[in-house]
């Protein structure tokens, strides 16, 4: 039992290190929960830990990764090891030529049959045989998922799997989708198993520190991979909805307008004519016009798109929203955001429209600002809030600080969102500190910061 307690404590520590807020009370709950359960099923243990320790769905992937490290499904090569020993006497190396061919053949069969257990065993075998990196001494060897996947090359089998699935009565379209899904799942199995073995060699703490990624709402826009971006995009609408709900509730709780005489008297009748509770008229909400001016050059394009989507998802909080993109030229993109438009389409249109914001393709903030005042000066007025998005990296060109200062003066509020970490402001060609003297600049690197910022300005 003491071994289990140590494991439990180490696991909770690792969860905290990964950013999950696990309180002492929850820790105790988890320990109580696992004593009430049959411990012969790993999935039940996982569920018990998840129910007691993880209170937010976005934390679930980090939890699962750590759970696999601290409570691995098997030790060493597991069941596949025995088979290896049986054929171990054969001449020749295990991981080249015919062995590889044979492995690919078995992999294709398992994948077209849709046999998950067989696939899992193959993944374990792939890491053990093809992903093994021998070291000089004990505890120096390691495993590489990259190596294993590169050598076994599951992608080469797509055609074969599709054929296999079609012979089972699927049409080509769904066979292709199924094959792609199976291979992606196999890659994940291999990656997971490699991590498990490294954790076994070097300790779970070591792996937990280096491999667990931040949750999607804390992930930097700049370090997001393609799959992360898609997930973030799916988060935009829920985020907007949460913000809108929170805003309405806060506005309601702050509605202290003038006394509503009629309602107060009406309510006093139920207390015998004594006005115990006063009722106020709701305050009229104060709404701004918003102008968004965003840098869409390569380095910050993703960040700009997210912010634009979020702003437009919240458009009913403003009287009017106009959006402009720039690289070294300014282009209006307001038209792309039709009410109820499809997110994926809007993103594609925005990407296509980027070329119209660039003449030479080198970011030039100074030129963009002066072009903006030339062509769209009417967009700014005393009721307007101006939101500038960009990293303020202007390729050492003329910054046109006075033009920007004029723009700021003509608006009610100005904010500048910078997707870079504060410590990088002013490094290299970044003009962030100089622009920050004119307009308040806010660091905004992930969805959480973005959500907080948008909430604060509304």
């Amino acid at each position, binding site marked *: 039992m003491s071994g289990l307690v140590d494991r439990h404590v180490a696991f909770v520590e690792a969860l905290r290190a990964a950013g999950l*807020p696990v309180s002492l009370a929850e820790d105790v709950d988890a320990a109580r929960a696992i004593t009430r359960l049959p411990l012969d099923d790993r999935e039940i243990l996982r569920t018990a830990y998840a129910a007691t320790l993880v209170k*937010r769905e976005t934390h679930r992937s980090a939890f699962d990764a750590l759970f696999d490290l601290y409570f691995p499904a098997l030790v060493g090569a597991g069941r596949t090891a025995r088979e290896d020993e049986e054929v171990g006497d054969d001449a020749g190396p295990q991981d080249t030529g015919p062995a590889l061919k044979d492995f690919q053949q078995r992999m294709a069969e398992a994948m077209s049959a849709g046999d998950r257990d067989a696939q899992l065993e193959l993944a374990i075998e792939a890491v053990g045989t093809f992903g093994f990196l021998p070291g000089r001494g004990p505890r120096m060897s390691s495993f590489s998922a990259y190596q294993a996947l590169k050598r076994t090359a599951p992608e080469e089998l797509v055609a074969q799997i599709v054929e296999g699935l079609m012979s089972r009565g699927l049409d080509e379209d769904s066979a292709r989708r199924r094959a792609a899904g199976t291979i992606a799942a196999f890659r994940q199995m291999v990656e997971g198993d490699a991590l498990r073995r490294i954790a076994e060699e070097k300790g779970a703490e070591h792996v937990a520190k280096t491999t667990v990624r931040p949750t999607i709402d804390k992930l930097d826009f700049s370090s997001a991979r393609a799959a992360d971006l*898609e997930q973030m995009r799916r988060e935009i609408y829920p985020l907007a909805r*949460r913000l809108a709900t929170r805003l309405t509730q806060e506005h309601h709780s702050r509605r202290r307008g003038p006394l509503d005489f009629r309602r107060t008297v009406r309510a006093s009748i139920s207390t015998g004519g004594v006005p115990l509770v006063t009722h106020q008229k709701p305050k009229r909400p104060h709404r701004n016009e918003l102008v968004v001016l965003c840098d869409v050059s390569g380095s910050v394009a993703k960040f700009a798109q997210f912010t634009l989507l979020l702003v437009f998802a919240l458009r009913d909080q403003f009287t009017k929203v106009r959006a402009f993109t720039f690289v070294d030229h300014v282009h209006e993109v307001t038209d792309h955001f039709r009410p109820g438009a499809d997110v994926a389409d809007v993103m594609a249109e925005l990407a296509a429209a980027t070329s119209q914001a660039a003449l030479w393709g080198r970011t030039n903030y100074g030129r963009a600002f002066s072009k903006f005042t030339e062509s769209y000066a009417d967009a700014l007025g005393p009721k307007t809030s101006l939101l500038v998005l960009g990293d303020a990296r202007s390729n050492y060109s003329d910054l046109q600080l006075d033009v920007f200062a004029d723009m700021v003066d003509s608006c009610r509020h100005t904010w500048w969102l910078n997707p870079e970490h504060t410590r990088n402001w002013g490094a290299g060609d970044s003009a962030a500190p100089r622009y920050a003297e004119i307009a308040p600049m806010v660091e905004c690197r992930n969805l959480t910061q973005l959500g907080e910022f948008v909430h604060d300005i509304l």
Partner: protein
Amino acid sequence: MTTWFKTPDHAREQLDSTGYLADPATATTAYLAGELGKPLLVEGPAGVGKTELAKAVARSTGADLVRLQCYEGLDEARALYEWNYKKQLLAIQMSGTGGHGDAAPVWDDIFTDEFLLTRPLLTAIRREEPTVLLIDEVDKTDVEVEGLLLEVLSDFQVTIPELGTISAVRRPFVLLTSNATRELSEAVKRRCLYLHLGYPDAERERDILLTQVPDLDRTLAGQVVETVARLRELELKKAPSIAESVDWARTLIALEIRDLDPEAVSRTLGVVLKHSSDHDRAIRELKLL
């Protein structure tokens, strides 16, 4: 203490027998909630069976369901208890006409059980029979109501200043549901077990359809599940959930459609997708035209 379920497997069998097909995680968590005597917070998209879970727990254990539907502006008087002031006024007037002087005893008398109107939270706590307390859509309330819930959720008691503290005679099985439109406070989350209900896998969803829509044919159910699964992969504003697939299956039965071909899908797509942009996207991606 009541035993709600004996083991995780028992929980699963019991829930199955009422027609709620729970996955292992749901069954285990429901078992734990009963065993540890902790409230269970269920979160997930609309229409995946969160409220239904509470009803199934009540049905399978023979308990009664007490429901508190949350909405914006819900307050103490409608969630916990209220003094029946009309009755209190009458009592004061009655005693006033009776005689002079002794008004003091009346002031004590009007704060008794007789004048107390219990609302769902207090009702659930005072019941002596097994009770399932469902606090539905807790994210719709104001933050202050969460504070009100804390005492109930952690100690299963309610403090009424005039009467004192009323503790639970028998701990109810508390289930809170949330659509996550708002982040609940850490204090509430800390006191609850947490379960995220997502979309079920294909096989379970087919079984759910077959239990909910008895006339449904197996192959048609398979087709519905497969199409819905594809729709969920698309980037939609509102992905169809189980409630929508059940509606869809019922629609197909009503229209006597036996085979879900592209034409049938595009004719009945309105049952599953509720946004016009989602509609357009689905038609384009599934190549329906």
